[in-house]
């Protein structure tokens, strides 16, 4: 963001002249208190590194067994996707789709689009269709609910503790790590920097 240019607050529409702020500082709206700009140190590199780590963790969290359930000598291992499959089988396809979207598709789309946009930008290239990808990433963001799912896991473990023995598997630990990585990744992302980098790379916006 160029200091001296203007931007409008997204919550109250007040115009602000963008102050000259150094890396790691932020600015909020003086009228409604909304966050306007948050600059981060090494935003591009850090977000990219975290997004790649997150992608690997997400793949692992979905391929390895997730939780084990032991009752009367019987052990049942489940994947993250097992519950979604159950919903589908018991005639609740919309519920299955909602859970699949909020716990797998949305986080995956978020991470993939971040890598798709940031990797070429880092090497002074212009990712084709970047604007559409970045726009969709911002639209999808509220639907990515991994941290809510994590609390759901904890509640379920407590709920079943009286009934049977719950054995956490590899995927649960991948999942926990993923939540922190994803949160750190989104926190280090500075969208304004992405637009600035685009303009700096000497590219011209579509149409």
């Amino acid at each position: 963001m160029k200091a001296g240019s203007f931007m409008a607050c997204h919550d109250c529409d007040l115009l602000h002249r963008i102050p000259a702020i150094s890396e790691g500082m932020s600015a909020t709206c003086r009228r409604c208190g909304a966050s306007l700009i948050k600059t981060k140190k090494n935003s591009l590199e850090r977000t990219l590194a975290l997004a790649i780590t997150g992608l690997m963790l997400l793949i692992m969290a979905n391929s390895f067994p997730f939780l084990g359930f032991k009752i009367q000598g019987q052990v049942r291992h489940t994947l993250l996707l097992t519950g979604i499959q159950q919903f589908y089988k018991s005639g609740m396809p919309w519920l299955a789709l909602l859970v699949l979207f909020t716990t797998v598709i949305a986080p995956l789309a978020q991470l993939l689009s971040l890598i798709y946009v940031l990797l070429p930008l880092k090497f002074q290239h212009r990712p084709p269709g970047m604007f559409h990808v970045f726009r969709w990433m911002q639209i999808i963001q509220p639907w990515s609910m991994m941290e809510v799912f994590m609390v759901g896991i904890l509640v379920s473990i407590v709920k079943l503790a009286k009934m049977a023995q719950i054995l956490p598997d590899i995927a649960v630990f991948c999942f926990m790590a993923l939540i922190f990585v994803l949160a750190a990744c989104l926190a280090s992302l500075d969208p304004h920097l992405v637009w600035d980098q685009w303009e700096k790379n000497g590219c011209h916006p579509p149409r």
Partner: protein
Amino acid sequence: MPSTPLTAKTASLVSCTICHLLIRKHPAMDDSLGKCPRCGATLRSRKRNSIARTWALILAAFLFYIPANLIPITKVTSLGVVQTDTIMSGVIYFITSGMWPIGLIIFVASVFVPLFKLIILTFLLVSVQRRSCWRQRDRTRLYRLTEAIGRWSMMDIFVVTILVALVHLGAVANIEAQKGAVFFAAVVVITMFAAMSFDPRLIWDIKELEDARKHPA
């Protein structure tokens, strides 16, 4: 004399919701202003039909909230004994069996948050329609709060997902999802769309109208 605060709208500018580029609004143009020259998002000075859409979604959510709380969300079979649970009976079970912190978490996420969101959004809509100037900053904060907490209502749906995945051992122990879970998921999704369709800038538009009337240029 307080000067009229300069907003994008009063300055005949439109701010892109995605990339925050300011674009000069042509006087001939009305609501829809085409696409953002930088990122390609559809440009609008304010969200389209914000008040009508939010009202419709709130009413739909209130309607779904009733079956979501009355119809069971899970059916538990344990050693041949079948029991169905609604959201509230689950909460009561935890409180009576000495695990009240878990009961409280479920109550807040599944019962309190959706209702709180719907009441706050109703209040914001009514106050905007009555052109209220009352505590605009706090009302904007309240809006940001409803936007941030809505996702936590999904927790109970996720708990059901995990339960049906794990407890699937025929007559010994089996948990199945019931139709109430579908209604509840609908409430969560609809209230999220309702919060997204409300435009907090409407809270402040009134101020500009009032100021313009008091201090005509």
